């Protein structure tokens, strides 16, 4: 496990360098700059501002300067939010995205796994025929449709929940449900397909023939082995969930990182884009590693793969 982890960490370095370089270049290629505005700055003022941020230097110098700061753990100042360092913005907003993402992840698992297992066990029957189209609906309904519908029912009509905000515990319910439902649908379908395949295996038939408790056969043997493809999906899913969602955060007024990620690109806030992209890249690499380690733990034979 340790050697695998170390190997993956070493492999991550060139990946992160490539991501940093590609993002840096793509940002500079996009038309417009961070200090372009409707009431245009006077040329001498713009020159001063660009000189202050080092944007008047050749691109390669700007790149090396940024890398140098990065190696010291500095992501730089936001160009849009004067007086705010990128680290502080991420530090303030990421915990919210993390919490929301975790709740959404739990919702996705809590809904998706039982549906997938039930559909597989009742393959071809009415329950299966009801559950799978429902999960398809979950995939087709985008968050910006589902969110307002849930708000209409639970906030406007019933008055049970607040329409937006991130204050009380109940404020987590609707955003988590909106975010998690989409992924629950995928998990359900993956789980069903994988479990159906596993249930056909000889060792399952043997276990049943030996008279093992059916619940034990399903829970301990079948589901455990059917989880592999689901796990492979869960790693990037969790990374995607905890990085925040611009749509969810806008609809429900959640102060997460997703809004910064999207709006920074529109604002040409170079440092904030770079900081969030690298932060996400590290997260995804970490989660992929975590998933691989869990898979090895579940099935040591997959170590060699």
């Amino acid at each position, binding site marked *: 496990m340790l050697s695998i982890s170390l190997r993956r960490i070493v492999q991550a370095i060139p990946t992160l360098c490539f991501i940093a370089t590609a993002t840096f270049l793509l940002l500079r290629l*996009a*038309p*417009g*700059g961070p200090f*372009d*505005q*409707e*009431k*245009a*700055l*006077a*040329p*001498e*003022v*713009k020159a*001063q*501002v660009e000189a*202050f941020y080092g944007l008047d230097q050749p691109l390669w110098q700007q790149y090396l300067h940024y890398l140098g700061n990065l190696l010291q753990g500095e992501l730089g*100042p936001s160009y*849009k*939010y*004067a*007086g*705010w*360092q990128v680290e502080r*913005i991420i530090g*303030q*907003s990421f915990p919210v995205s993390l919490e929301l993402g975790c709740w959404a992840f739990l919702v996705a698992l809590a809904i998706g796994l039982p549906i997938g297992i039930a559909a597989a066990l009742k393959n071809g029957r009415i329950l299966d025929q009801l559950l799978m189209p429902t999960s398809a609906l979950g995939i087709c309904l985008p968050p910006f449709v589902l969110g307002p519908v849930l*708000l209409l029912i639970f*906030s*406007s009509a019933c*008055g*049970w*929940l*607040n*329409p*937006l*905000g*991130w204050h*009380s*515990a*109940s404020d987590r*319910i609707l955003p988590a449900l909106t975010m998690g439902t989409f992924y629950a649908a995928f998990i359900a379908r993956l789980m069903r397909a994988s479990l159906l395949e596993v249930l056909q295996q000889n060792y399952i038939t043997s276990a049943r023939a030996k008279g093992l408790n059916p619940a034990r056969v399903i829970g301990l043997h079948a589901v455990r082995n059917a989880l592999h493809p689901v796990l492979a999906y869960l790693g990037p899913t969790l990374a995607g969930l905890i990085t925040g969602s611009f749509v969810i*955060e*806008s*609809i*429900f*007024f959640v*102060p*997460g990182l997703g*809004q*910064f990620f999207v709006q920074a690109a*529109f*604002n*040409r806030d170079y440092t904030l884009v770079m900081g969030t992209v690298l932060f996400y890249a590290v997260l995804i690499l970490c989660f992929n590693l975590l998933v691989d380690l869990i898979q090895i733990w579940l099935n040591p034979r997959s170590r060699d793969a």
Partner: protein
Amino acid sequence: MRFHLREFVTALLWLTCTSCSEFETNVERGARTQTLYYGLGTEPATIDPHLATGLTEFNVMLALFEGLVNIDAKTGTIVPGVATSWQQSKNGLRYTFHLNPAARWSNGDPVRAEDFCFAYQRILSPQLGAPYAYMLYPIRGAKAFHTGKTNQFHTVGVQAINAQTLEIELEQATPYFLSLLTHNTWWPVHPQTILAHGRSTDRLAPWTQPENFVGNGPFRLQAWRLKHRLSVDKNPYYHGRDSVKLNGIHFLPIEQNAEERAFRADYLHLTSSVPIHRIDWYRKHLPDHMRTEPALGVYYYVFNTAKPPLDDPRVRRALAYAIDREALTQHILKAGQVPAYHFTPPNTGAYSIAAQFQYDPERARRLLAEAGYPQGQGFPEFELTYNTSEAHRTLAVAIQQMWHKELGIQIRLYNQEWKAYLATRQAKDFELLRAAWFGDYNDPYTFLSLAESDNGNNPSNWSDPRYDQWMDLAAKTLDPAERLSYFQRAESYLMEEMPFMPLYFYVTNRLIHPSLEGWYPHILDYHPYQSLSIKQL
């Protein structure tokens, strides 16, 4: 230990019920605690008055800072702020302000004339790169200092005679000078706070963070979490604290559609706007909750007068006269906008001009024929560029259809993302461009100066020495009536040449809870928080 499902479900339901839906809404809490919940629509980029450029930032900073003068909420007239009184010299070039000895910063330090000098030096220092430093150019020597012609600030016409007396000398008579002082660029900053966190021109200095911030306004910064809330509470050192009825304000950067939903749920007292598709509903069902007020802004299209056939003023006038602005504002925009037949919004600084043209398709066709394109024959297709927005697109499509129907010409529509649009505008790489302009102060000069030859915000390639001369005469004239007459001549000529084609004047629509008192319309959207209070309904 066995898992007791029934008990678990019961506990979960209890937890949900007890935390569901606040028993007290923000509106109710606001009335009880005199706390205003204000929807900003977007996150303020900064609360540094020397770096801020937008209305969102201004609405927050108005709570945290105070300038030499204020605007009376009800009458809109200039009233004392930090300065209790002032004198103007006979030639109009020197102003002497007497500061209130009770004026304090939020840390208890007295507000001194030297603080204003420090602030003006800071904003005019080229190293700061303040985007609105030009607002201080009426001060003698300010432009030379800001553009680097001199680095001697003592040549700038600002002097602290003593701690309570500030003298400002102007380059030339500026009739609207006092209203300029209400703009955030003229507000003081606390020198010790700024210098404690870096050089005065360090844009990255964290002096605006809640733990560092010091201001002299009726409120002080309590907390600021991006995309969540910026909270202020009453400044105990503010000289007029006894007249401030609110105890605090929570500024919430909620996006427009969510903001309207929040208002309906009594989450907000006040919003920054109303979604267009909800305006009719509020007019019909809750008319006393929505306010429509004139705004000092114009929506217009810019012609690139270097590109044929748009280099011909007859073509430009033909295009302008063929648009039915009444139909646009009543049936497409529907938010109370005013059709524009001149460039400066009505009643800008007591200046108004009669309509310079009207909807006249027949005259438009004659003009086009005179220009060599009878019934639009041979008229080349050109492109209208606008920044991506459903509202801009809808208007553009309507105008495209009007031109096709009335003049027989075709145009292409091209939308660009905001920064790309700005780059296009900067490079003058367009034929016709959607634009908007909001006045920085209540005087026609802020609009009409846009068409001057040396104005960096004029991308039309249009330049005329006669226009520049009228504007120059208006700037130098002391007599108000004569000054306005120069503006009228300039604007008439501008509409004759038509490098800018005005379409409508903006209005501000916002939702205001009936419990909020003391909110009065103002063309610059200036609403001092000192006059606001919340009543129990």
